[in-house]
């Protein structure tokens, strides 16, 4: 079709015969360059972090690991005790908060999606209101102090149990994406509300729940805020994201790790290399779940966004 239009203008090049024109080339270049901007930094850091010292100091674009793969920087950071400990803290906190958060949020979203039941609309408004109005940092701090949560592991888990953003997405999913007739049929067939929820609704929404669990897990793995605000200086509770932040800005921490690396028997590794290997460690779990995330999230984010 297009070739015809082009021909009527009387200039047909080789590329146009193949179905390309300037417009396509522009689109192709624009998208490709932007995509490279998105992934090259990660690739660069990954390659640089496994490049041997002698090659590393030369710098350059690091398109491919030259001079072999050397894991000395990873050995250096993992010989520091706080790294292993923080991995455990992050992993356990991620599992605990994700499980509790998905269960609590999904259950509530399902209940509230039944707007014909008395009180549900009010509860919904109460939850959503919080998205826009909250006490703020200091009132939160005061409450946690009263509850004895300050400097406790649980301050990283409990307050996030009800996730308002995903509450809205799940509520919309339950209201719009599950055929009403299905639930009605189950109820008419003598299935109880309990049975409908566990045997009809939950199996259908399994993939939505899995997707949201992954999203919440990524958020929790990345979280350092709750530690920074409400725990502060208890080093045995540091999550990995906080260790990474310290590696980026805290000179004392960096010197400590470099000293540790020297006792392993090499020259002091460049700070940049240690930062890179820490960045890769923080990224790795996310990369592992990304393929699964991607499969679901295109549908996940638009759940309930469009009325049918």
């Amino acid at each position: 079709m297009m070739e015809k239009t082009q021909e009527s203008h009387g200039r047909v090049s080789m590329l146009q015969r193949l179905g390309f024109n300037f417009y396509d080339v522009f689109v192709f270049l624009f998208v490709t360059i932007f995509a490279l901007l998105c992934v090259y930094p990660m690739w660069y850091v990954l390659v640089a972090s496994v490049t041997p010292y002698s090659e590393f100091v030369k710098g350059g674009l690091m398109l491919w690991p030259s001079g072999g793969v050397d894991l000395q920087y990873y050995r250096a950071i993992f010989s520091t005790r706080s790294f292993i400990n923080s991995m455990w803290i992050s992993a356990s906190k991620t599992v605990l908060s994700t499980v509790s958060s998905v269960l609590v949020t999904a259950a509530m979203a399902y209940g509230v999606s039944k707007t014909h039941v008395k009180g549900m609309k009010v509860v919904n408004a109460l939850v959503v209101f919080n998205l826009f109005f909250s006490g703020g940092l200091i009132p939160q701090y005061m409450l946690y102090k009263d509850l004895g949560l300050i400097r406790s592991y649980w301050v990283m888990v409990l307050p996030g149990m009800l996730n308002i953003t995903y509450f809205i997405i799940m509520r919309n999913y339950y209201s719009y994406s599950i055929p009403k007739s299905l639930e009605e049929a189950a109820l008419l067939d003598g299935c109880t509300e309990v049975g409908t929820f566990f045997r009809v609704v939950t199996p259908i929404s399994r993939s939505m729940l899995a997707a949201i669990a992954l999203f919440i897990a990524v958020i929790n793995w990345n979280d350092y805020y709750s530690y920074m605000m409400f725990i502060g200086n208890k080093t045995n509770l540091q999550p990995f994201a906080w260790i990474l932040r310290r590696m980026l800005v805290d000179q004392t921490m960096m010197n400590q790790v470099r000293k540790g690396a020297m006792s392993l028997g090499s020259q002091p590794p460049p700070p940049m290399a240690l930062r890179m290997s820490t960045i890769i460690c923080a990224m790795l779990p996310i990369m592992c779940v990304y393929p699964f995330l991607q499969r679901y999230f295109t549908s996940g984010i638009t759940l309930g966004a469009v009325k049918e």
Partner: protein
Amino acid sequence: MSQKTSAIAQPVLNKRKTGFITYIKKYWFLYMLILPGFISMVIFDYGPMYGIQLAFKKYSPKAGVWGSQWIGLDNFQRMIADPSFVRAFTNTIIINIYHLIFGFTFNVFLALMLNELKFRKYKSVMQTCVYLPYFLSWVIFSGLVQVFLESPGTADSGGLVNQLIAMAGGQPIDFLKRPELFRGILVISSIIKTSGYSTIVYLAAIAGIDPALYESAAIDGANRKDALIHITFPRILPSVVIMLILQLAGLFLSNFDQVYNLYNNYVLSTGDVLSTYIYRISLGGGGTDFELSTAMNLIMNLMGLVVVGITNKYVSKLDVQGIF
């Protein structure tokens, strides 16, 4: 069992006579389901609100929140008189406007361009690439920014960009400590991190366009660029407007995560935003001005609420679901 079934089958008939007990009996399970979330909401979302009174009080740690002395609007007067607050407030709005002008426009453009890619396989590879950075935290991302932009130090030759500048024979630039560059870094890093992900909404809208429209346009002699301008763009306009309104609703909100991880003392003049300032005067950086921090939070929240109230009205007027 049978009683319950009949109650469900004839809800209208029973509605008036149903007492409280019968109602609960019928729906107890739904109330049980929302209970944990409800308790969590009451404690962790509404619980802190008693602390808002600090905005009108002079906090003394001994007396606690309730026992501290009321001082009226003194905290708010201090807030308005505080030049750092005014600076943070202006910065917040300016940075948000930059995000709106550059970031928002770029998102729409990127979505259109992704859609115009001819080969499906290639398109999905590109999508995989551009969505990815969204899932990295700002801590990781600030690490990447540092790896690329840092100036040469004593122990290494600096970030990649400065290495390249040095190779080309130029002077290294200390990107991260130049106030005039900081907002640009915020906008660009945020485009790279979130633009890809933001296209999902638009691509979903594009996927819903009837292909027959393109076919008939092609028959009428339109090329792909014409189709983009006259078919695709008008069709996604509603989504664009909604996203625009939502973004406007956040005009007074600042991205703590991003700014906190990228800024430093050198760039406070252009980079300090409300959330980072609120943090610095209360819990971080040695400050303990709890009252001032609470007062600022309260004002921000109220202003945000007004904007959201207005925008939600407009969103509900469009043919889409509002947030409430």
